[in-house]
Structures are given as structure tokens and as C-alpha cells.
């Protein structure tokens, strides 16, 4: 692939007009919440940008993330972005297979050492786990990851599995699955969480990287603030119902039909940071809450273990009734012990009790 072409040359070669290109720049700006005044700068930067080499590693994943990215509707930003990067290695998408595929990865790493991006989807059995749980071409996921990121410019963890461990990491986490950021400590990392993540979030980050040559501003979980800066609840169109205290209590009650808030049906919107409410899904068609289903909180750490999907945010995952009863019984025993010990003491004392006598009192006069 022609990694040396600039993006502008590439796009023009594909027949994208100047106008189309500027539209792309404007869309990128708005996506990343940048002011329109920056559009010319973006255009300028993009025109001069080299197509970066991207190595896409898929580990313990379901391919949902890739599906999300590719199930886009033409002509799309996602499509454009795919043109704008040099995707040198991707299990699912690349034509090469077997040894050739692995060779392509090593080749790209050598050619672009220090400059290539590594995109990861899926979680990784950690170094202490059995390496055989997940392998590619006989190499453990962990070994491949560590080898590949060594000379990378940055790592982009796509999807909740890569960002936080996701489904494979759900209790009891049989494969010892870990998130990328738990294993890679010396490289810039961006997490684009979601199960799957919103496609625009992936392309937005790539566009930002292309434009500015650096990663966008991140939150405490290293998620791009442009997409993860606000909670679902804060942008949810059902919020007025929440504020007024109007809730659906089952999926087919009057409240559900009226489109009331889904809090009591387990909506995790309040604790979930993602852009579903603004970007929506399937080319802007709809999104879960609009479809009548509570947010599952898929872009948050440990979302599988955060309590039932259909139980409200305030409900703790599980209460161990047996342990609680045990604690109560232990408490009762302790209390009874204290009372009986005190009673025993006083009874003993009473047996040797000296009554107050007049003689004793007289001495006090």
C-alpha cells in the first residue's frame, strides 16, 4: 500500500472532490467538538498528512467491534477513514492469511517503527494466565500484544473488552482476561469503550490523530472526552420524565408506551458515559433508550458485573443472605455473652454484698 501518499492525494485519487473533502473536515471538527474556525487548519493538516500505518490486533473478542465499524453506510466518514489509513494487519479484513499475514505485521512494524498505531479489540489473558487460552499462529495474545506495541506510537483499545476487559473478564473471569491498559504501561493509550463502541468514536479519534498528530483529550478512563464527556442520562431525551418522576415500571405498561424514563427498569444511563444519545446508532436511526430499552452501561468498566441489567442503579449486585444471617447470629451471641457476663459478675457481687448499716452511715456524720 502507498503509505507515503498524503491523505489529500489519496482522496483525490479516489475521486473525492475538494468540496467533499472540506465536508469531511467539518464533520470531523464537529464530531470532536472543535470550533468551526479550526476547519481550515484541519483541512490544511489533513492535506499534508501521511497515511499512518495501522496494525489491528484482535484477541478475545466477538468481532462485534469490527462489525460496528464496518457496518457503515456509504458514503461515510468511516469509509473515508479507512481510505485514510494504511490498515496493514487485520485478521478479519485482510486478504492475506497464515504466515503471510504474520509477515505483513512484522513488515509494517519494521517499516514504521515508532510511528505506527496499534488498534486492539478484545481482551488478553494476562501474563499469569494459561497462554493457551487464546493464541494467534501459535503465539499467545499477551506475547503478540507486547511484541507489537513495543515500537508503536500509540495504542487504541477499541471496545469494552480491550478497554476494560469486557465480557471475557466478567466474573469469574476464567481466562484471566485483562484490559490493554493493564498490560501496556509505557505507550499512549486511548480507550474507545462500548460493546460495541460507536463507530464515529473510532473514526473521530483516528481523524484527530491524523489532523493533529496527537491523541485527543481524554477522561480518567482514557476515553476521548469528545465522545465520553457526558453521561447518557445527561443527554437523554427521556430525562424530563426522570426529573418529573415519571417512570415506566414494566416494558409494556402505560409509562413504557408514553416513553417515560427507564430508570426503574434498570437503566444505567446515569452512570454511563458514551455518545449514544447524541450520535445514535445505525447511521443515526435510533439508539437503545429510544428503542425502549434501558441503557446497559456497556461503555463502563465491569459492566457485566455491575448488577442485573434490569435492576436500578441503586441496587447492589447481590446480598449474601446466609452471611448476613451468620453475622446476625454472631452478633446475638456476642451480645448475649456480654449481658450474661455482666449479670454473672453482679450476681457474684450480690452474693457477697455488704448491706449499708447504720454504723457505717454514722461514721460519715
Amino acid at each position, binding site marked *: 500500500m502507498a503509505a507515503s501518499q498524503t491523505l489529500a492525494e489519496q482522496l483525490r485519487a479516489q475521486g473525492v472532490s475538494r468540496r467533499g473533502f472540506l465536508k469531511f473536515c467539518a464533520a470531523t471538527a464537529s464530531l470532536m467538538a472543535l470550533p468551526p474556525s479550526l476547519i481550515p487548519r484541519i483541512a490544511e493538516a489533513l492535506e499534508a498528512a501521511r497515511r499512518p500505518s495501522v496494525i489491528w490486533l484482535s484477541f478475545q473478542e466477538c468481532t462485534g467491534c469490527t462489525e460496528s465499524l464496518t457496518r457503515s453506510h456509504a458514503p461515510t466518514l468511516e469509509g473515508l477513514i479507512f481510505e485514510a489509513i494504511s490498515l496493514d494487519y487485520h485478521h478479519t479484513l485482510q486478504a492475506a492469511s497464515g504466515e503471510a499475514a504474520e509477515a505483513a505485521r512484522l513488515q509494517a512494524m519494521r517499516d514504521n517503527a515508532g510511528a505506527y498505531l496499534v488498534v486492539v479489540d478484545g481482551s488478553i489473558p494476562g501474563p499469569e494466565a494459561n497462554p493457551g487460552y487464546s493464541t494467534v499462529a501459535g503465539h499467545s495474545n499477551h506475547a503478540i500484544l507486547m511484541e507489537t506495541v513495543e515500537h508503536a506510537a500509540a495504542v487504541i483499545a477499541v471496545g469494552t473488552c480491550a478497554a476494560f476487559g469486557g465480557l471475557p473478564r466478567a466474573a469469574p473471569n476464567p481466562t484471566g482476561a485483562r484490559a490493554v491498559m493493564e498490560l501496556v504501561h509505557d505507550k499512549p493509550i486511548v480507550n474507545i469503550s462500548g460493546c460495541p463502541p460507536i463507530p464515529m468514536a473510532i473514526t473521530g479519534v483516528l481523524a484527530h490523530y491524523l489532523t493533529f498528530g496527537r491523541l485527543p483529550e481524554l477522561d480518567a478512563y482514557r476515553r476521548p472526552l469528545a465522545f465520553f464527556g457526558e453521561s447518557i442520562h445527561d443527554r437523554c431525551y427521556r430525562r424530563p420524565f426522570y426529573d418529573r418522576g415519571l*417512570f415506566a415500571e414494566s416494558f409494556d405498561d402505560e409509562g413504557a408506551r408514553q416513553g417515560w424514563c427507564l430508570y426503574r427498569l434498570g437503566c444505567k444511563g446515569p452512570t454511563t458515559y458514551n455518545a449514544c444519545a447524541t450520535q445514535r446508532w445505525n447511521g443515526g436511526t435510533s439508539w437503545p433508550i429510544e428503542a425502549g430499552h434501558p441503557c446497559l452501561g456497556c461503555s463502563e468498566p465491569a459492566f457485566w458485573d455491575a448488577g442485573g441489567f434490569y435492576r436500578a442503579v*441503586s441496587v447492589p449486585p447481590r446480598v449474601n443472605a446466609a452471611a448476613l444471617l451468620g453475622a446476625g447470629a454472631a*452478633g446475638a*451471641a456476642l451480645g448475649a455473652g456480654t449481658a450474661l457476663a*455482666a449479670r454473672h459478675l453482679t450476681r457474684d457481687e450480690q452474693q457477697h454484698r455488704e448491706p449499708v448499716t447504720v454504723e457505717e452511715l454514722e461514721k460519715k456524720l
Partner: protein
Amino acid sequence: MNGAMEFLLWTKGPMFQIALGIFAVGMLARLFEILLLGRATNHAEARAGEWLPGLRTVFTRTIPDPGTFRRAPFDVLVGWVWHLGFIIVLLLSVPHVELIAGVFGVSWPALPNPVIDLLTAITLAGLVAALLHRLLHPVKRRISIPQDYLVWALTFAVVLTGYLAYHRLVEPYPLALGMHILSAELLLICLPFTKLTHIFTTVFARWYNGAAFGRKGVRS
């Protein structure tokens, strides 16, 4: 990973269990160490029974006699306001109704959020007034011990963090909610070991009082 979300999950998960466990141990120990002490047999001829007057007092003590109300209206009103606010918010707000339903499997109707929010604001104001009164009134200042201020702070913290969470005044939200749940758990943990036990023992105290007076034919 130890971000806000993990903190929230910790407060909802392990910490919740720990708090409930300590509470269960402490509170049952407390009740047993009180009740097992028993009372000596009373040989004096009773004028009336004990059970009904005892139960009566359990309820009637909630409302002070008119003279006491006249002498200490501030105590009575402020006490009432924040206790009621606290109890209503605790038992009748949507997140708490869901919590109780989720943990104990019983549920009842909830009040709309704006009502709860107003009550919360009133409760906060009531608690501040109660603190000021404690600091300024000579009797309260004289009999207060550090524990009283600790208990106040814990109680205030629970309501305040609930308010902050509801209004999203602390970001990120999981941090705010985690703080709220953690303060509720601290309250639960301290309950058996501080004057907060009165939540459970007042019933017995009032009953004993009502029974002792009732036996002599006096409504107390």
C-alpha cells in the same frame, strides 16, 4: 483499575456487604446485651397492665406535651422536620424504593423526584439548624460529646451526597453516587456503636417507660 466506576461498584458490592455485616453483628449484639439483662420481678400490686400503656407510649412520645413544646419549640420543630425529611427520602424516593425492593423484595409506591428533592433541601437546612442549636444552646453544648458531632456529620454527609448526586454537582457521577452510598454505609456501620442505636432502642426505652408508669396508672 481504580476509577470512579470501580469505586461505585466497590461501594455497591463488597463494601455494602461489609457494612451490612458489621451492622448485623453490632445491632444484634446491642439488642441482646440490653434485653437479656431483664427486669427484676415487681411484687407491688399493679394498678393497670404494662403492655398496652407501654405500646401507647411507644407512639405517643413522638408528640411532646404542650408545655414542653412551648418551652422548646425549636428543638421539637427542627427535630421533627429533619427526621421526617430523612425518613421520607430514605423510604419513599425512587432509587431507595428500588434498593429496598432489590435487597428485601418488598416494595411500595415512591414519591416524585421533585418532591424528594425539596424534602432533601429542607432536611439539609434542618440538620444545619440542629447543629447550630447544638453549638449555641448552653445545655446542648454542655452535654455534647465528640460522638454527637461525628453522628451529625455522618447523617449530614448521607443527605448532602445524595443531593449532590441527584443534581450532578460532582463529576463523574459514579464518584458522586459512590460517595453517597459509602456515607450511607458508614452511617450503618456506626449505627450500633453510637447514639444512632436510638433508631432501634427507642422502641424499648419508650415501652419500658410507658409500662412502668402505666403499671401505676399513669399515662406517660
